[in-house]
């Protein structure tokens, strides 16, 4: 970013060290959203191959049946699970649910919105994503 605005830019935005798990969730959400969008576009293209008939479809199936594509697919599964679970958390938050009630703050200040409910939400999104990815890997590489 230009120094005259002194904005932190993308680097500062995703720096995971300063603002706790909430910030990690923030950019994982973005990353997974973008990743899913990319996959989604690819997926639409992929399925359109069905118009090329049996041969075209199988050709594509073979092409995407490599370990590389399987790993990609597992990551997509993880992203999908994380994005969905965290998305539901974020939506609740945005609606003002589970963000605490206004009250007189007492020093040392402990912001009610940064509470364990949301932290649990974030961690469970990550854990579920990991589990789903394992499962995906198991299925894909299992046979």
């Amino acid at each position: 970013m230009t120094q005259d605005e002194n904005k932190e830019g993308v680097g500062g935005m995703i720096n995971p060290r300063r603002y706790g798990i909430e910030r990690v969730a923030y950019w994982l959400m973005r990353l997974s959203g973008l990743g899913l969008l990319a996959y989604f576009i690819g997926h639409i293209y992929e399925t359109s191959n069905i118009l090329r008939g049996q041969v075209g479809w199988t050709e594509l199936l073979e092409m995407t049946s490599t370990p590389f594509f399987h790993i990609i697919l597992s990551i997509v599964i993880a992203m999908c699970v994380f994005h969905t679970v965290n998305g539901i958390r974020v939506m609740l938050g945005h609606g003002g649910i589970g963000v605490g009630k206004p009250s007189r703050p007492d020093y040392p200040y402990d912001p009610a919105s940064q509470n364990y409910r949301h932290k649990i939400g974030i961690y469970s999104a990550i854990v579920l994503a990991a589990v789903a990815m394992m499962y995906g890997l198991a299925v894909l590489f299992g046979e």
Partner: protein
Amino acid sequence: MRESTIMKIHYGTALAAVALVAVHILMRLTMNFAESLEYETVLANYKFIPYALMLELILILLSVHGFNGLRVILLELKQGRTYEKAVSYGCLAAMVGLIAYGSRTIIMVNMGMV
């Protein structure tokens, strides 16, 4: 459109998608994964009208959701009147494009054009 309307659509599409994508994925899981991708199965799926309708719906929902998400990210990345206009219309165009392209597949398969 008001930003709140856009964002309500964003959340709405996400919620609806949760349900539909779950069905979509569960369908894949009702059988062996590799099997589910067999040409015949897929084709049969497409030809099953309710399922095709669902696919069409997912396509629309996720395109709207995904490209609006992209728009949001791009809007926050850089500012300026022309840039913002370009982003908004660009995302809209891409969204319409993707929906059209995907729908073409569904409709053509459905009408037995393969």
